[in-house]
C-alpha cells in the first residue's frame, strides 16, 4: 500500500501547522486517497496506475498548501503554551485567570477543601473585623464627625476623667462656653411604655435642645427637638428614632402628633430622626429622645435637674471652624474656675468643695470623641483583639492547609511544568501563573467568606446582647471591611501560593520528563516542605487549643463556682412602685403585703425582698467602722450594703455560719441589728466571733437611715457571696433588715422567689399576685441564673467563639495531616512494595509511616507549647480561677491534638500496609 501520509505531509510542510492539526488533516486525506486507490484497483486498474490516479487528486506539489493556507491560518491559532512570555503583562492576565479556572476545575476535591477552609477562615476574620470596625473604628454617622469632641473634666487630685456631669454643670457649659459652635448633653435612660404591670422597656435618652441641631441630624419626618423644647418646667416632647418608628408605628405618618407614654407620662411625638442616626453611644440602641427638662416631669421631687451632686449627663461639642481640640481645651480650662465655682455642691464638706472649685475641663477627640461614647468599646476591645488574633491564626492554619494541598498537587504537575519549561516558558512567568491560581482561589474563598461573615457577625452581636443591656451595632459592610477582606484574600493567595509556586517550578525539565526516580526525588523534596507546613499547623493549632481550653475552663469555673447563693430555680421580680405614688412611710407595709401574696402562691418554696439584687450591677456602699478595731493601713473601709427581708438568706440559700438571721422581733423599735459576711467579720475581728459586737456605717450616701447614725449589733455571719458580678472577688458585705428602715424606702426593689418548678412557669401567677396588691407597680422578671449568665457574657462569648475556632483549627489540621500522609504514602507505594516483597512485616511498615507523622507531631507540639506559654500571658486578665500556664489545660490540649493527628495519619498508614507488592512493583 502506498505511503499516502508522507506525500500529504510533504505538501503540508510549508503551512507550519500545529502538529496535532497537521496529523489530523493527513489522516483524513490519506483515508480519502486510500479509498480512491482501492476503488480503482477494484475496477481492474494496475496498482501503479491506481496510485498515480489517486495522487493526482492532490494536484501537483503546492495546490493543497495554497488552498488550505487561507483557511487554516485563521482557523487554528498557535496553541498557547501557558507560561510562554508574550511581552505584554496585562494581556496575559485574563489568559492566566482562564487557565487557573481550568486547573481548579480539574481537581475538584482539592478546590472544594481549599474553598471551604478559606470561606471559614476569611469569613471568621471578616466577621470579627466588622465588629471591630463597628465598635472601635467607625465614626458617628453625623455631619463632619471629626469636628465633634467630648467635654469631660477632672479633679486636680486625680488623673481620672469624670464620666458624667451634673445638670448645673451642663447649664454652665451651655450658657458660657465660647470654644464650640454648639454644645449638647444627653443621658441614656430606659423608659417603660407600660403603666404598671410587667415592664415594657425601651431605650431612650434625655437630650438637650441642641442635641440634634449640633450633631447635624435631619428629621425623616416632622421636626426634631429645638432649644425651645428644653426649658425648665417644659411640657416635654418626644422624637423617635427611625428604627423605632418603623417597628412600632410601621412608619405611619399618623405617629406624628400622637402621644407616647413613657413611665406613665404622655409626651407628644413631634418627629422622627433620619434613618442613619442611631445615637451617640455605640452599641446601645436608641428608640426615643425627650428633652432634659422632662426629667423633672418623670422624677418629680427626686428630679436631678438642680441636684449638684447627681452625675448623669454626657457632654459633647462641635469645634468652631479653625479651632483645634488643643485650643478648645485651653479655652475651656481658662473658664473652668468660673463655671465650676458657680455650681459647687453646697452639702459637701468644705474640704471637698475646695477640690470641686479646682475641677478643670478636658476636651477629648480622636477615637475617644468622634465615635461617641463607648461603654461597649471599653468592655469589648480586649476580647475583640483576642478574637481577631484567634481568627488570624485560624486563617494562617487554613492557608497552611491549602499550601500543603497545592504543594502536593504541584508535585503531581511536575511533568506538565517541565513540558512548559521546555516549550520556552520562563520560570518567572510560570510562578505568576501558579500565583494567579492561588489568588483566584482566595478571591472565590473571600466571596464565600463575606457570606459567612454576614451571618457570623450578627450571630455574635446576639451573643453579647444580654437582657440588661441589648447591643445594637450597625454592621453594614463599609469600605473598610470590604478592603480588609480583599486585603486578606490577596495576602492569603500569595501566602499559600508562593511556596508551591517556587517549589513547583523548580524543575529540571529533562529529568522530570523521565518519570521514575526523578519524580520520587522531586516528591521527596516536596514532602519535606509539606512536613514543615504541617508542623507549623500543628504548632498554631495547639496554641489555639490551649487558648480555647483556658477560656472554656474560665467560663466553666465561673458557672460552677460557689457564688454564695444557689442561682438555680430563683425568679427575680424587679419592681418599681414609682407610678403608684406611695408615700415613703407606707412603702414597707405595701412590700409586706406583696411578699405575703407571693409566698402564698403554690409552687413558691420561699420568697424574700432586697434592695440590691445580687449581680444586677446595682451598688450601695459606704465606709464601715468598728469602734476599737482600726483597720490596718491601706485597707479601704468600704463595705457593700443591702437591705433584705426575713427569708432572704433561706431563699438565696446563702449559708448562715454563725448567730441567727433576721426575725420578726427585729422591728423599728428594737435594737438595730446587722448581719455581716465572713470577709467583713474576718477583716475586723480576725478569728474571734463578731456576734454581739457593734459596727457603725459612715454618714453620706443617697439613703439616710435612722440606724446609720447609731451602732448596730452584729447578730449573724453568712457566707461570702458575689455582689455585682461573678468574676469579681468577694467583697465585705453588711445586710440590714427592711423592718428597721423607716425613711427613704426605695421605690425600686427586687423580690426573689425560689420555686419548686421551672421559674418561668410561675410568672403569670406572680404578675397577678403583685397586681392584686397594686396594679401600678411595674414588674420585670428574670431568673437569677440569667442574671448570673449576663455578668459573664464576655467570658461566655470568648469560650463559645474560641471553642468554635479551636475546633475548626483542629479540623483543618487533621485535614492537612491526612492529606499529607496520604500523599507521602502514595509517593512511597513503590518503596513499600519492594520492602514487602523482600519480606518486611506489615507492622514495621505501619511504624515506618507513622514515625514520619509522629516526628512532625512532636516538633509541632513542642513549638506550639513554647508559643502558647509566651502568648497566653497576654490573656491573663481574662482568665478566672486558673493561670495562663494551667498544666491541666495544656495536657488536655496536647492530648486532643495528638489523638486527632494520629487518627488522621492512621487511615493513610493503614492503606500503606495494604499495598499489594505485585501491584506496587508493576506500577512502574
Amino acid at each position, binding site marked *: 500500500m502506498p505511503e499516502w501520509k508522507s506525500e500529504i505531509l510533504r505538501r503540508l510542510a510549508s503551512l507550519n501547522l500545529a502538529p496535532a492539526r497537521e496529523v489530523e*488533516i493527513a*489522516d*483524513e*486525506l490519506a*483515508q*480519502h*486517497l*486510500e*479509498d*480512491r486507490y482501492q476503488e480503482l484497483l477494484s475496477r481492474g486498474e494496475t496498482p501503479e496506475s491506481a496510485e498515480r490516479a489517486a495522487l*493526482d*487528486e*492532490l*494536484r*501537483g506539489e503546492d*495546490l*493543497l498548501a495554497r*488552498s*488550505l493556507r487561507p*483557511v*487554516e491560518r*485563521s*482557523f487554528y491559532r498557535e496553541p498557547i503554551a501557558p507560561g510562554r512570555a508574550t511581552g505584554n503583562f496585562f494581556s496575559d492576565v485574563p489568559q492566566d485567570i482562564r487557565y487557573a479556572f481550568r486547573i481548579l476545575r480539574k481537581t475538584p476535591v482539592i478546590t472544594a477543601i481549599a474553598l471551604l477552609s478559606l470561606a471559614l477562615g476569611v469569613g471568621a476574620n471578616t466577621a470579627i473585623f466588622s465588629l471591630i470596625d463597628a465598635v472601635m473604628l467607625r465614626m458617628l454617622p453625623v455631619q463632619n464627625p471629626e469636628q465633634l469632641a467630648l467635654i469631660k473634666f477632672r479633679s486636680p487630685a486625680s488623673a481620672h476623667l469624670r464620666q458624667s456631669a451634673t445638670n448645673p454643670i451642663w447649664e454652665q457649659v451651655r450658657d458660657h462656653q465660647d470654644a464650640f459652635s454648639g454644645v449638647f448633653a444627653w443621658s441614656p435612660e430606659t423608659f417603660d411604655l407600660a403603666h404598671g404591670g410587667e415592664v415594657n422597656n425601651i431605650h431612650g435618652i434625655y437630650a438637650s435642645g441642641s442635641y440634634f441641631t449640633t450633631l447635624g441630624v435631619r428629621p425623616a419626618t416632622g421636626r426634631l427637638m429645638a432649644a425651645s423644647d428644653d426649658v425648665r418646667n417644659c411640657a416635654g416632647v418626644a422624637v423617635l428614632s427611625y428604627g423605632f418608628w418603623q417597628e412600632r408605628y410601621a412608619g405611619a405618618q399618623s405617629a406624628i402628633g400622637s402621644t407616647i407614654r413613657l413611665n406613665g407620662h404622655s409626651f407628644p411625638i413631634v418627629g422622627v430622626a433620619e434613618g442613619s442616626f442611631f445615637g451617640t453611644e455605640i452599641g446601645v440602641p436608641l428608640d426615643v429622645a425627650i428633652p432634659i427638662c422632662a426629667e423633672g416631669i418623670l422624677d418629680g421631687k427626686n428630679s436631678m435637674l438642680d441636684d449638684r451632686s447627681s452625675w448623669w449627663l454626657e457632654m459633647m461639642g462641635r469645634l468652631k471652624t479653625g479651632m483645634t481640640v488643643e485650643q478648645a481645651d485651653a479655652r475651656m480650662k481658662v473658664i473652668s474656675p468660673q463655671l465650676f465655682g458657680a455650681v459647687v455642691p453646697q452639702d459637701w464638706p468644705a474640704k471637698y468643695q475646695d477640690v470641686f472649685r479646682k475641677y478643670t475641663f478636658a476636651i477629648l477627640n480622636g477615637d475617644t470623641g468622634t465615635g461617641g461614647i463607648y461603654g461597649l468599646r471599653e468592655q469589648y476591645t480586649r476580647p475583640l483583639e483576642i478574637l481577631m488574633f484567634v481568627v488570624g491564626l485560624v486563617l494562617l492554619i487554613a492557608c497552611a492547609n491549602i499550601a500543603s494541598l497545592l504543594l502536593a498537587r504541584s508535585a503531581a504537575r511536575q511533568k506538565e511544568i517541565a513540558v512548559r519549561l521546555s516549550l520556552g516558558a520562563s520560570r518567572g512567568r510560570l510562578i505568576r501563573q501558579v500565583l494567579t491560581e492561588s489568588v483566584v482561589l482566595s478571591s472565590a474563598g473571600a466571596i464565600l467568606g463575606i457570606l459567612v461573615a454576614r451571618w457570623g457577625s450578627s450571630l455574635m452581636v446576639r451573643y453579647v446582647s444580654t437582657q440588661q443591656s441589648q447591643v445594637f451595632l450597625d454592621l453594614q459592610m463599609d469600605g473598610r471591611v470590604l478592603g480588609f477582606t480583599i486585603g486578606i484574600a490577596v495576602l492569603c493567595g500569595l501566602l499559600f501560593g508562593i511556596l508551591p509556586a517556587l517549589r513547583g517550578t523548580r524543575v529540571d525539565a529533562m529529568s522530570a520528563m523521565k518519570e521514575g526516580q526523578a519524580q520520587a526525588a522531586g516528591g521527596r523534596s516536596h514532602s519535606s516542605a509539606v512536613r514543615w507546613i504541617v508542623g507549623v499547623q500543628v504548632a498554631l493549632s495547639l496554641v489555639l487549643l490551649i487558648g480555647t481550653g483556658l477560656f472554656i475552663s474560665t467560663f466553666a469555673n465561673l458557672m460552677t463556682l460557689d457564688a454564695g447563693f444557689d442561682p438555680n430555680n430563683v425568679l427575680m421580680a424587679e419592681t418599681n412602685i414609682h407610678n403608684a405614688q406611695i408615700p415613703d412611710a407606707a412603702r414597707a407595709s405595701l412590700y409586706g403585703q406583696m411578699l405575703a401574696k407571693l409566698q402564698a402562691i403554690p409552687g413558691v418554696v420561699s420568697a424574700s425582698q432586697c434592695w440590691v439584687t445580687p449581680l444586677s450591677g446595682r451598688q450601695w456602699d459606704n465606709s464601715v467602722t468598728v469602734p476599737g478595731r482600726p483597720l490596718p493601713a491601706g485597707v479601704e473601709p468600704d463595705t457593700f450594703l443591702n437591705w433584705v427581708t426575713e427569708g432572704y438568706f433561706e431563699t438565696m440559700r446563702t449559708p448562715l455560719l454563725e448567730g441567727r438571721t433576721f426575725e420578726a422581733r427585729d422591728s423599728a423599735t428594737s435594737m438595730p441589728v446587722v448581719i455581716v459576711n465572713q470577709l467583713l467579720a474576718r477583716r475586723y475581728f480576725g478569728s474571734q466571733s463578731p456576734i454581739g459586737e457593734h459596727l457603725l456605717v459612715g454618714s453620706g450616701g443617697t439613703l439616710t437611715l435612722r440606724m446609720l447614725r447609731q451602732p448596730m449589733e452584729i447578730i449573724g455571719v453568712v457566707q461570702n457571696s458575689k455582689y455585682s458580678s461573678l468574676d469579681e472577688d468577694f467583697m465585705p458585705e453588711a445586710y440590714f433588715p427592711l423592718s428597721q428602715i423607716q425613711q427613704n424606702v426605695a421605690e425600686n426593689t427586687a423580690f426573689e422567689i425560689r420555686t419548686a418548678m421551672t421559674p418561668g412557669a410561675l410568672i403569670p401567677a406572680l404578675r397577678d399576685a403583685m397586681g392584686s396588691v397594686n396594679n401600678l407597680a411595674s414588674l420585670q422578671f428574670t431568673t437569677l441564673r440569667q442574671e448570673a449568665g449576663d455578668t459573664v457574657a464576655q467570658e461566655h462569648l470568648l469560650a463559645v467563639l474560641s471553642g468554635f475556632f479551636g475546633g475548626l483549627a483542629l479540623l483543618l489540621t487533621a485535614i492537612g495531616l491526612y492529606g499529607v500522609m496520604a500523599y507521602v504514602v502514595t509517593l512511597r507505594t513503590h518503596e513499600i512494595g519492594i520492602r514487602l516483597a523482600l519480606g518486611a512485616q506489615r507492622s514495621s511498615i505501619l511504624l515506618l509511616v507513622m514515625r514520619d507523622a509522629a516526628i512532625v507531631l512532636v516538633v509541632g507540639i513542642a513549638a506550639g507549647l513554647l508559643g502558647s506559654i509566651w502568648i497566653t500571658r497576654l490573656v491573663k486578665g481574662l482568665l478566672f480561677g486558673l493561670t495562663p500556664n494551667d498544666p491541666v489545660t495544656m495536657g488536655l490540649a496536647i492530648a486532643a491534638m495528638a489523638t486527632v493527628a494520629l487518627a488522621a495519619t492512621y487511615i493513610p498508614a493503614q492503606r500503606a500496609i495494604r499495598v499489594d507488592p505485585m501491584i506496587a512493583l508493576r506500577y512502574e
Partner: protein
Amino acid sequence: MLILSLIEARPRHGYEISKLIEQRSGGAVRFHVASLYPLLYRLERRGWIQGRWVEKNGQRRRRYYRLTRHGRRVLAAQLRGWREFVAGINRITEVENA
C-alpha cells in the same frame, strides 16, 4: 451548496461526498482532494458543518461531516436563492424560445 445538500439527510465522509458529487452530476462536477478538503474546512470554520471522527465496525477511522443548525439555515436560504435564480433564467430563456 452542493456539499451542504449532500449531507443534509445524514453525515457523510469526504470520499463519499466527492463520489456523490461526481455520480449525481454524471461526472460533470468533480472535486479533487486539493479543492474538496480546503472547502470542507472552510465550511467547518464558518460553523455550517461539523466534522467528527467515527470508527465503524470493521472499517477504518473516518471523519464524518454533518450539517449544523446554522448550516441548515444557510442551505435553506441558498436553495431558495438558487430556485429563484433558475426560475428567472427559465423565464428569460422561455421568452426567447417562444
